[in-house]
């Protein structure tokens, strides 16, 4: 059973638009949700994260919205830039060792 699901698999937006990437999870004990950004040929890098005690986390153009009751979260990228084109992974853990990753959303921002 896949613990973390992401949608859509791929997303294309125009420069300046808002990209919305979705994530849902199974295990209600998950309490930490990082989003990682991965460019081709590189390892994932932490972009932004949220803990389950919060319902929103903002960092510049990147915002996470978290709905604990529905076990869903989303990453909003406002004023999307071509440099944001990458694969975005939602991850989750319980505070112990193992992080579960989703399959990722491939974002393309067209100039």
């Amino acid at each position: 059973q896949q613990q973390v699901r992401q949608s859509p698999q791929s997303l294309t937006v125009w420069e300046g638009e808002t990209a919305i990437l979705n994530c849902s999870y199974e295990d209600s004990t998950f309490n930490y949700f990082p989003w990682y950004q991965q460019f081709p040929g590189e390892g994932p890098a932490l972009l932004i994260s949220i803990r389950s005690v919060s319902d929103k986390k903002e960092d510049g153009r990147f915002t996470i919205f978290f709905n604990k009751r529905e076990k869903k979260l989303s990453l909003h990228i406002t004023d999307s830039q071509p440099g944001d084109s990458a694969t975005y992974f939602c991850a989750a853990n319980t505070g112990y060792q193992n992080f579960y990753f989703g399959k990722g959303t491939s974002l393309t921002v067209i100039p």
Partner: protein
Amino acid sequence: GPKVLQIPSHQIIDMGQMVTLNCDPVSNHLYFYWYKQILGQQMEFLVNFYNGKVMEKSKLFKDQFSVERPDGSYFTLKIQPTALEDSAVYFCASSLQVSNERLFFGHGTKLSVL
């Protein structure tokens, strides 16, 4: 920022051979991880390692897999013998602590088993 280095970036071997993937984690980090990523798929957790011991491993961490970090040198993933389904990109990661802690990933080693 802190860097995790992985050597080599690409390894091609014949099925049945042994392979060792090397990782140089961030210098003051204490927890080390291996993840496996098949093209277009999510990263799958393999194993984590702390204080010289495996703390947790997944069902993907087959008996043919082993990890070690002798004397604070490279954190290694050894596969012996390799199988075709081991072809993937293997990412090493490290973290300072374990609980809700940021993972720092290397660029990955692409393993091609022929």
